[in-house]
């Protein structure tokens, strides 16, 4: 077991070193500096901007939203938040070019509204189903084996 892990780890180090050599040997210093800036920015933006923002948003939801709305709200936040983040390049149409009408040729704002509407509707429907199931029983316990269900999709 230990030997296998060491061998696998060594393989990983080897692959990583090959990547580092590829990175350093194919471009000039200005390009490498720019790549390093992008590599570092991703970590910094995630760890010190996005993650704290999520902490604050979840804290706000926990404090402001009524108890039975919290789970659906978090589900909607995770789904919509993640998908919106990865749609930033198309939502902003940053790569659009006047000479190419086949590129970025959808109305992404409308698409986002539709997606948000469907997500919210699905989450609300899921929450209503969960509520109606739980109503006749004793109040839902925190550690019920299946836990509150997220609903939606």
């Amino acid at each position: 077991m230990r030997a296998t892990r060491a061998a696998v780890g060594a393989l990983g180090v080897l692959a990583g070193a090959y990547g580092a050599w590829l990175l350093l040997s194919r471009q000039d210093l200005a390009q490498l500096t720019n790549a390093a800036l992008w590599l570092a920015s991703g970590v910094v933006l995630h760890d010190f901007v996005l993650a704290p923002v999520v902490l604050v948003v979840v804290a706000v939801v926990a404090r402001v939203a009524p108890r039975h709305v919290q789970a659906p709200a978090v589900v909607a936040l995770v789904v919509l938040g993640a998908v919106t983040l990865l749609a930033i390049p198309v939502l902003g149409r940053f790569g659009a070019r006047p000479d190419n009408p086949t590129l970025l040729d959808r109305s992404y704002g409308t698409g986002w509204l539709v997606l948000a509407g469907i997500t919210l509707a699905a989450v609300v429907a899921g929450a209503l189903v969960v509520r109606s199931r739980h109503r006749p029983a004793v109040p839902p316990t925190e550690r019920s084996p299946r836990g509150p269900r997220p609903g939606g999709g």
Partner: protein
Amino acid sequence: MKLPTPPSDEQFTSRLRSAAVAARIGLWLGICFGLAFVTGVISHYAQNHSQPIPFPTSPSWGYRVTQGVHVVSGTAAVPLLLVKLWTVYPRLFARPPRGLRRLAVEGLERGSIGVLVAAAIFQLASGLLNSAQWYPWSFSFRSTHYAIGWVAIGALVVHIAVKLPVIRRALGADVDDTSQDRPNATRPGVLSRRGLLRTTWVASGVAVLATAGSTVPLLRNVSVFGVRSGDGPGGIPINKSARAAAVTASAVSPDYRFTVAYGDREVTLTRDELAAMPQATRSLPIACVEGWSAGGSWSGVVLRDLLDLVDAPRGRDVLVVSLQESGPYRETVLQGNFADDDRTLLALRLEGEELAIDHGYPCRLIAPNRPGVLQTKWVKRLEVQA
């Protein structure tokens, strides 16, 4: 309200931030990164000039599938990575251990995690931007994305080797198992662990459905964030327009001549002469490195017939030269097995109509199982290599 400024991992008390959750999301994240790595290496190799092992010409839709998988797995990985990082976020604030030896070991491990996180975020972000043709950087996308791909997969393999006992215990036990949790991570979350996992799978699924229509025709109407709707002349979108390639004049000039050369033999043809040669029709996809693809019915001259005009032997690489005067794909190398394939055409028509100028009028290369950037448009010259 007060902003949380966490000085230590002990302040993160949610029982959702557990190895049981991280390992389950990590498993799928690893699968996505593995798929993206393998298909990325395939794509890189397919674009190499020199191919010691010839890249196969069959199946004709092979590159369409591998590059589609590449972009889809990368897209699916975005929600997975976000939630995975959320579950392990407290570790960022873990106090360093006492003792030089343990400190060094932990330093190494955290260093490798730092490399992994930086590489993973970089790959997903740069890939997403590239697929939307947004390049707000000065490094070479192809070189850098390829190199960091190796770094990411290497760091991932190291991470798996380091964490293997934790992963095995976590995946072998129930998701609500707490044996590997931090001691104070006991506060019930808004969701259950299963609820968080299901939400993550849904987010990943929605991400794929919302974008994959650029390469999966069935999803065209569903993919609200598809970079391309699939519309374009002849039902095929355009990557580089004639205007961007600065060929709007030369492509329609009456002086246009097509030349095929081998050694000191050269044959020059007008477009009418090309159109008068025996024509063949082939159904072949255009599959772009940016991840979009579309199938088309192309008509034109079988490329091998043109090479026969100058008695070029079989198996020779062919330099394909475009009318465009600059750009990395002005000249491309068509490997011998592609040049000899009966399906490889110098296409003059698409879907029964004259090729649109943005699709490469007067003629373009179309070969099976080949990255779109190498399907050279506005072809003016074929040079059979010695």
